[in-house]
């Protein structure tokens, strides 16, 4: 499986995820959340940021079901779902992820028929990655 190739801006997200926390970057001056992480705030141009804890609740904004040809680790689990989740307490933050049956389960552990745009999900963590389960 591919692991995140992080950069300086994104690293805190993954460090929090490794501790089982979902946090998003927000401007320390005007409070505007932003994703993906970056050096400064597009609203007020401040370089001060903080990592704000979020509830981990969200809704499915869209989803796809990839089929091969895929990289071998992924082909073995195909067809699986990939979703974009819109966070409940930061609606303009959308995270790519997978809806699984339970924390640590395979990408194909949930029947794709159960996935709908608008469905409520909440975050769980496995191996340093956020995953999503149906709420």
């Amino acid at each position, binding site marked *: *499986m*591919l*692991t*995140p*190739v*992080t*950069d300086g*801006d*994104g690293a805190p997200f*993954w460090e929090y995820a490794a501790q089982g926390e979902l946090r998003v970057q927000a401007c320390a001056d005007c409070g505007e959340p932003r*994703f*993906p992480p970056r050096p400064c705030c*597009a609203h007020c141009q401040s370089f001060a940021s903080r990592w704000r804890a979020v509830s981990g609740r969200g809704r499915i*904004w*869209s*989803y*796809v*079901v*990839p*089929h091969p040809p*895929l*990289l071998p680790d*992924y082909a073995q*689990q195909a*067809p*699986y779902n*990939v979703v*974009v989740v819109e966070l409940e307490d930061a609606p*303009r*933050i*959308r*995270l*790519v*992820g*997978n809806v699984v049956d339970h924390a640590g389960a395979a*990408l194909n552990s949930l029947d*794709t028929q159960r996935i709908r*745009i608008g469905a409520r999900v909440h975050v769980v963590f496995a191996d340093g*990655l956020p995953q999503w389960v149906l709420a």
Partner: protein
Amino acid sequence: MAVAGLKDATAIVGIGQSAFAKHLPQDEKTLACRAVLAALEDAGIAPGEVDALASYTMEETDEVELAKAVGFGDLTFFSKVGYGGGGSCATVGHLAAAIACGQASVGVAWRSRKRGSGPRPWTNTTVQLPTPAQWTRPFGLLRPADEIAMLTRRYMHEYGATRDHLFNVALACRNRANQNPAAVMYERPLTREMYMTSRWISEPLCLFDNCLETDGALACVIVGRERARDCRHAPVYVHSAAQGLPAQHHGMVNYWNDDPLTGPAWTAARHLWKHADFTPDDVDVAQVYDAFTALVPLSLEGYGFCGRGEGGAFTEGGALEIGGRLPLNTSGGGLSEAYVHGFNLVNEGVKQLRGSSTAQVPGAATCLVTAGEGVPTSALLLRN
């Protein structure tokens, strides 16, 4: 001569291409040289007169290598536009700008690819750009098809677009390819049954929603309007040219701005039409970047052929076929002629305005050509 900006100040006077196939024996550099020489021959211009080059990223043939191999003169302008297939039309736009303001006099733009027989970029796991790959690839969103399928699902959900609408796009392209002996899919008709029963690539996109992986090369030659009158073929004028990188955009995985369904086409279109003497209603034929079928309804909306959310419905009733409201991708496009990062769409636009297309729109006088949607893009309005 006083010229108002770029409008009709320059013209495309030569086009050239290699064969298109899943596997061609020549390497990329050789294909590039052949396409460029064919375009110069078509224009009746000697290689030594070329003083400007433009290409776009993901082009493996370096300007230096091309200039040396083909025998160009001293170059005074060269540019490479970013974001892969989003740069196809911008190459012509950059050359037009350079020539219109006196930085150069004879420009060549090109694309040479071995995507049919070479590696696919998404399989490269060693070179992952941290942004956005860290936010997508670990979760199995691996290929451009997956990234665009995500937008497609949302688009269908919001506006009621259907797979039949996507099929209409695939069919129009295939029907035109069936008229084009150079097309990879020349002798291979497509039916609705084939489409609906084909294998999935990334639901909701099936096999026929995806472009062809192709080996091939194309080039075109651009000069000022005075010079253009002396060339072998009637000039095809660069009427308007634009690039588009919207505020808060994020590459092809653009789920992270306020409105992911209004992509770069919208930004390019505003500039394109502002500098044009005609409107979408006056476009006779369009060559719309079609790496995936779903890019077409999104582009039809962005370039103003219909309202927001109406791109799917626009494809109904044969609108994209010859004789329809907007004949589309008349060489077969990336879906059925060849996927050469959209450069075949530029050359096909020229053919239509010369009256030499294999699927000629009678009396075509205006053509829209677009580059990759989803990524920072570019577009041209051509007229004869």
